[in-house]
């Protein structure tokens, strides 16, 4: 870099961006502001954060402080203009620093080690000098064998007045730092691609239904936009989430509809996804969930193309879009639920039945009539024997049957997890297999074309860090000269990392030379 006095403005900006000082300032600022972001809950309701602030600074100051923090973007700070600017400065600093320093390092990496000029021996960090008695030729042999026994695969060269052995290892390790820095840039590029060309949405899909749209976050919508959104949503509902069908219903071009939908936070997937089943399994009979899973079917162009049961750590991918098991819930309206029973009469007649609430059915092989009168996702009984629902999850699903046998009527709860409850008074068995359609699965839907670039950056960063921290460039020169009938051996060595260890190795070698030279 030119160090002239009259630097123009571009040079100055360049120098500023290339400085380690900037790196240190940006590191500190990112770290310090991030702390605030972990204390204030991000993208939360104002009440929540006012509460947090009043805990820290007292109630009287809280509303004012909240307004100040809010105006500065701290309520969604990782997406605020100034935090993004900090990240960009970080990236620019990294890039400019690398470009700035690269040529000199590249020169060093490209050129293999050469014999060292005599006057340069003094300038090397590790240096030793010994004088050995005996002929120079003999000493040369000793030096060679000691170096070999110590694992230095050296080269040799003769110069006027002396003979030199030289060796180096790990020249390319000097690039580790650059690989690491470059990887961070790759990761940031991948993240940007994800932000600009991907989307993150969600989709709550009831059992048995399909949809072709995911819902994303939007900015604040105008009343006109909200009503437009409702109209489009209704059209989508009627068409089962099929965008082209909804376009026909609304009488608009599909491409126009797609563009409007994206604006209004509805992302067309290009295919439909159907939830065939959602299931929570528990550890034994405890209420501790073991796994959440959804059986999903992808329907593309009217054909079922893919079927997979997804779990929390095992998503489904199709055409670049990934569906993650994220949440679940109970549907509000029980009229569409299917209660699935497996009945076994005393005479051994067994059958599987699917009935709706309020529907009368005959238990096969008997003359018993039954109706589902009530249901619960998680049934328990209080101390007076009254039934109540203790959880919003399907922890202990139960269906209440009204049973009518020869004019005698009674009610009975059948619980999926308790076989004891399946047996009717006269020995027939009614097992509750599932209450289907009662739950919806909450899917996180994401397309992120940048994620592989991020992973690539992570992989190269791991390699870069390994090289940068665990490998070093070690160099060694040994010069043998004749001096007043004796032989002088000059040793110079350098290591760009862990010099102490290399120095110990050199000292050991020198000691061996002294022994061998006697």
């Amino acid at each position, binding site marked *: 870099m030119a160090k002239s006095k009259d630097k123009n403005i571009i040079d100055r900006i360049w120098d500023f961006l290339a400085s380690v000082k900037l790196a*240190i300032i940006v590191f500190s600022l990112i770290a310090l502001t991030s702390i605030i972001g972990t204390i204030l809950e991000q993208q939360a309701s104002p009440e929540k954060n006012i509460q947090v602030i009043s805990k820290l600074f007292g109630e009287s100051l809280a509303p004012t402080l909240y307004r100040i923090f809010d105006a500065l973007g701290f309520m969604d700070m990782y997406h605020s203009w100034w935090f993004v600017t900090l990240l960009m400065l970080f990236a620019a600093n990294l890039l400019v620093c690398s470009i700035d320093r690269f040529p000199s390092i590249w020169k060093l990496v490209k050129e293999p080690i050469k014999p060292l000029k005599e006057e340069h021996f003094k300038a090397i960090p590790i240096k030793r000098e010994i004088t050995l008695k005996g002929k120079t030729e003999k000493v040369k042999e000793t030096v060679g064998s000691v170096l070999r026994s110590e694992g230095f695969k050296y080269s040799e060269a003769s110069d006027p007045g002396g003979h030199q052995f030289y060796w180096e290892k790990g020249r390319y390790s000097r690039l580790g730092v650059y690989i690491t820095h470059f990887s961070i840039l790759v990761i940031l590029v991948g993240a940007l691609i994800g932000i600009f060309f991907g989307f993150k949405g969600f989709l709550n899909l009831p059992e048995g239904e399909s949809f072709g749209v995911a819902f994303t976050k939007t900015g604040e919508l105008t009343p006109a936009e909200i009503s437009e959104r409702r109209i489009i949503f209704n059209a989508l509902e009627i068409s089962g989430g099929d965008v082209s069908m909804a376009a026909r219903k609304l009488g608009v071009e599909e491409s126009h509809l797609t563009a409007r939908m994206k604006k209004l936070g509805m992302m067309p997937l290009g295919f439909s996804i159907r939830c065939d089943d959602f299931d929570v399994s528990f550890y034994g009979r405890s209420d501790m969930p073991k*796994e959440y899973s959804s059986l999903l079917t992808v329907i593309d162009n009217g054909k079922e193309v893919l079927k997979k049961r997804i*779990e*929390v750590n095992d998503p489904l991918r199709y055409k670049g879009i990934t569906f993650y*098991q994220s949440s679940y819930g109970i549907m509000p309206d029980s009229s569409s639920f299917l209660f699935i029973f497996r009945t076994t009469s005393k005479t051994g007649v067994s059958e599987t039945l699917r009935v709706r609430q309020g529907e009368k059915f005959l238990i096969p092989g008997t003359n018993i009539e039954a109706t589902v009168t009530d249901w619960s996702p998680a049934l328990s009984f209080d101390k007076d024997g009254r039934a109540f629902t203790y959880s919003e999850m399907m922890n202990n699903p139960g269906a209440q049957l009204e049973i009518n046998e020869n004019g005698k009527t009674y009610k009975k709860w059948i619980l999926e997890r308790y076989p004891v409850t399946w047996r009717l008074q006269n020995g027939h068995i009614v097992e509750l297999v599932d209450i289907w359609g009662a739950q919806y699965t909450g899917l996180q*839907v994401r397309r992120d074309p940048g994620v592989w670039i991020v992973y690539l950056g992570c992989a190269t960063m791991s390699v870069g*860090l390994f090289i940068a921290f*665990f490998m070093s460039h070690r160099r060694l020169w040994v010069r043998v000269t004749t001096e007043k009938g004796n032989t002088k051996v000059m040793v110079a060595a350098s290591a760009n990392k862990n010099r102490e260890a290399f120095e110990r190795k050199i000292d050991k070698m020198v000691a061996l030379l002294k022994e061998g030279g006697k």
Partner: protein
Amino acid sequence: MDSSVFFGISTVAYILAMITYITYIAFKKHGVGVAATTITITGFVCQTLAILLRWKEFYDISQMGILRSVPITNLYESLIFFVWCLILGYLVVEFKYKNRSFGAFVTPVAGLALAFIDISGMSKEIQPLVPALQSNWLLVHVIMSFISYATFALSFSTAMMYLIVTTERKTEASYIFWSVMLGIFVIVLGALGLDFLKFKVAGMKPEALIKSYLFKATFFSDSSIVSILSYIAAFVLLFVIWRYGYILKRIIETFNISASTLDEITYKSIAIGFPIFTLGGLIFGAIWADQAWGVYWSWDPKETWSLITWFVYAFYLHARLLRGWRGHKISVVAVLGFVAVIFTYLGVNLLLSGLHAYGGLE
């Protein structure tokens, strides 16, 4: 025999080792030193056995793969693993630098942490894993995170010792820094201890204690007298540590470790911990989050705090390697780095909410 027996033996061994190491420093008898090392190794072997046994117990109960049954999924297990890494790291240093003096610092931390787990009433039950934790990434992510935490803990203690032995005057900024830092550590640990004692008496549940009773026995007490007295006591403690810090300095000076060796160990442990933390903590964490939650980075408090930690250590490395920072300045950064580590590990779980809400005390 089950794992708890071996955990018990290792706790006792570390406390015994602490006494032996202190005796060794006082009398410098070679035999005592060898005894201290032997006791520590015995404790370490027992703890290793205990962890393996617990792993097997967990495997038998959970009926998941062996890789997913690794016992590091709640605060109790992770603290035990942390202590294990710490002792391993210490033994490596002892053999490499042929110096036993650190033992007097490390074994108390190990013994007290294990004893704290015991008296705090932390849940020791083997709990089955919630769905999000059922992944093969669990093993590598958590183990590598903890190995790096342990190396950072080592760098913290050597950086503190460096500051203690190299400061001369009480009015020096570095002297004030280390004495206040040490004071805060002692005060927070003491206050937590009092909370737990009080909770023991009242028989409350630990999660309730952390969520709403943190420092209730002292600073945030309902009785304003207790609260004021606590602040006074804390202040007095700070003053005493500041006033009599030179005693610590004299003790450490008897260790026969040069300040430059301390500085070197600080740097080396960070240089080892940093890549491991980046790979295991940040990168593997991001890949796992991508699989489980559908986002590789979501600025959740745990993620953000690990990034803060990463930046502090990146700062340390750049300041040292490029700007040539040495001595007090760089040691202060190393100490602050470990403060960030503690917050990432414990503070986030105990104080802030987020997706990583597994490590709590329940």
